């Protein structure tokens, strides 16, 4: 006998990460890509920016605290630092975490390539809206400059289910009339 315990859906709140990847330009900043990831409150967002010399993968997570939200980001960065004596590329791996607190609908500016403020940056707005129930995560990403390698993904942590297994012993659990007619119980003795 199996019994499942699945947590009930809480009040529906839908989280939306709205992002724009912007590059500085001489006249006005240029939007390279824009998109949004939405889903239940535990939805994370993975943003990947890749070039010949650097690769940045950032996993954003939110923790709502009242009217504010804690935005955490795990950065996985690979920078090309040169070539080995045999001519193969040498990469530098770096992993670190950043956390900021902001109000809902505020704009956070992420500088994935460093605090020197050079190169592209990402504008991120966190929105929440009440929904009738929990719906699937959704993602949309529009890369304006197709020569760039950008990716945006929704990441959902796996749901946990509590499964209880009860073993029923035939000799004590079922009446004699059942055991006589049941091949499984008679085989079990």
């Amino acid at each position: 006998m199996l019994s499942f315990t699945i947590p009930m859906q809480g009040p529906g709140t839908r989280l939306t990460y709205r992002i724009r990847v912007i590059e500085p330009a001489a006249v006005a900043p240029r939007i390279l890509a824009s998109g949004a990831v939405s889903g239940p409150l535990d939805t994370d967002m993975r943003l990947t920016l890749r070039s010949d010399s650097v690769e940045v993968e950032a996993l954003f997570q939110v923790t709502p605290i009242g009217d504010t939200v804690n935005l955490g980001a795990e950065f996985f960065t690979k920078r090309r630092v040169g070539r080995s004596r045999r001519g193969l590329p040498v990469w530098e791996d770096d992993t670190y975490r950043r956390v900021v607190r902001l109000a809902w609908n505020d704009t956070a500016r992420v500088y994935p390539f460093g605090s020197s403020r050079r190169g592209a940056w990402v504008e991120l707005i966190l929105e929440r809206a009440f929904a009738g129930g929990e719906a699937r995560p959704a993602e949309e990403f529009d890369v304006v400059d197709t020569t760039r390698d950008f990716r945006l993904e929704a990441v959902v942590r796996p749901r946990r289910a509590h499964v209880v297994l009860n073993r029923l012993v035939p000799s004590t659990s079922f009446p004699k009339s059942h055991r006589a007619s049941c091949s499984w119980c008679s085989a079990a003795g």
Partner: protein
Amino acid sequence: MTEPIHDQWLVQIDAELDGELSLVERAALAKHLATCVHCAGARASQLEVRVALARSAGNPHAFVVPRPVIRPGTLTLWVAIALGIGLLAGWGAHQRWGGPGSGAPLEETRGTIVVH
């Protein structure tokens, strides 16, 4: 056709002033200089240059241009000093900047989040 001949005589003049010509060659050169104003002028110029070099070396009455003398011990010492300086500079640069990669501090190359 006269230029190659003059070039050859100029080489001979140089060798004569260095004392590297045989008597026969010196006689031939003297004979040519007696008839060639161009080569005679070149020889005079060469001599003036050598006098100037001898004066700058502090020996205006020298018979030949004084040449610097490199002693093997001094050469070895300077090579050792240059190697030592190179090794020290390399060690210092490695301590300061490490291996490959930019010299910028790590935090400057890391991403940041700024709230507006």
